[in-house]
């Protein structure tokens, strides 16, 4: 994303819109004679498109760039209007539990975890998520193959990402994995260690199939791991067809 300094009248209307606080007002430069204008910090910008789509600029000074690799990853992870070619879904995640009634992705004895780096509202470099993948793989977690982050892994044995993508900044990136119920507590202990070393925030999501007797083993596992299941969340109400035979 760019702001054309020749068009910008420095009204400041775009500044507060940026979720990454990457738009700054620059004063008139006496040496060059350039008038005061707004500018986007390209290193902090995640190409989410909020400023451009808002139409807030009275001079149409906010412009979209043609993005090339690896910068285009910022848009793929941060702008939900952009459909990631790997998932065919807008945004940085997958269908996860939303279609579990027909896919059977999460079954008895398995718990889904999602570590969303950068959410809420802080953003993350992809290397933060890479560090988590590197620490979780030795614990036997199965990464979601359709997740766009998984698709950036260069070395499946270590979880190392392609080197050129590590410093790209995105609004958020999700490490999605399935964990055997008996390994959940061990994995959660590692998640806590990962969080302690992180320079961003991590929103933790936990997915579980509800048992026939109404028990939710994932909630019980969370409590055993010392985490309170949230008051609110998501429920798949089982209307998908053909229903997966669990």
């Amino acid at each position, binding site marked *: 994303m760019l702001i054309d300094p020749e068009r910008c009248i420095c009204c400041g209307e775009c500044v507060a819109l940026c979720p990454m606080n990457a738009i700054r007002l620059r004063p008139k430069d006496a040496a060059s004679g350039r008038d005061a204008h707004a500018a986007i910090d390209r290193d902090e910008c995640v190409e989410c498109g909020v400023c451009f789509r808002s139409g807030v600029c009275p001079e149409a000074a906010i412009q979209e760039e043609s993005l090339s690799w690896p910068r285009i990853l910022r848009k793929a992870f941060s702008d939900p209007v952009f459909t990631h070619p790997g998932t065919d879904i807008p945004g940085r995640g997958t269908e996860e539990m939303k279609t579990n009634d027909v896919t059977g992705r999460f079954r008895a004895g398995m718990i889904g975890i999602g570590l969303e780096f950068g959410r809420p509202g802080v953003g993350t470099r992809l290397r933060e998520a890479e560090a988590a993948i590197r620490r979780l793989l030795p614990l036997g977690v199965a990464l979601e193959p359709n997740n766009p982050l998984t698709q950036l892994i260069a070395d499946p044995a270590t979880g190392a990402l392609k080197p050129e993508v590590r410093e790209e900044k995105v609004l958020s990136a999700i490490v999605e994995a399935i964990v055997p119920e008996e390994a959940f507590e061990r994995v959660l202990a590692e998640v806590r260690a990962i969080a302690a070393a992180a320079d*961003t925030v991590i929103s933790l999501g936990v997915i579980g199939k509800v048992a026939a007797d109404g028990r939710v083993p994932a909630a019980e596992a969370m409590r055993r791991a010392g985490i309170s299941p949230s008051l609110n969340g*998501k429920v*798949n109400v*089982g209307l998908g067809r053909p229903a997966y035979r669990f």
Partner: protein
Amino acid sequence: MSHTLHRCGAAEDLKQDFVVFSMSAKTVNAKGSGETMKRFFELLRNLPAANFGDVKTGSRFNTDWQTIHDRFRDQSVAHYVFSDRHVVAQALRALKDADLGLSVIVSGVFAEIEAICREVGLPVHTVQYSGGVLGRTDRLPPGPVLAITTMCGHGLVSARLVEKLARQVKRGQKEAAAAAAELARPCMCGVFNVERAERLLRELADRRDG
């Protein structure tokens, strides 16, 4: 994609915040689902919704119902936001009767959703909990601001915009409803509950110094 998870706030407030949405599975029932998604969208049209939308087209705050409807394609995801549990029950009853075959997901307070499912006769099939926010929580905005920004799970509503608009509401420069509508615009999916935002903005304006 967990765009309706991790909404934070006070329990009583969250009890008035539901998202009902539908999606197809790429490998199972996506083919031809665009037309079925239109039916989903039509079925809930007359219920009082705080918002609706599809990320590819926008929400009620940047386009209109018909445009969203007409642009559904296979693998589109349609959303409605409701503030009243009785309306959610009506929505689920209609969807159960219609038996469209697409997955339906409800976000909200679990105890409320479970009670509604019992009423309507639907199972609580699979659940997703939030385990909270870990790591550098010192970088987060204050709780009341976060309660508003987390209603856009893609993170497109900026904390600074919330603070700016709350100041304008406090100074009487803007109505809370208009400010809430302005906050809803960046959220392209239409999952931002504008009624809840209006309420929270008023509370924020009442609390703010300056």
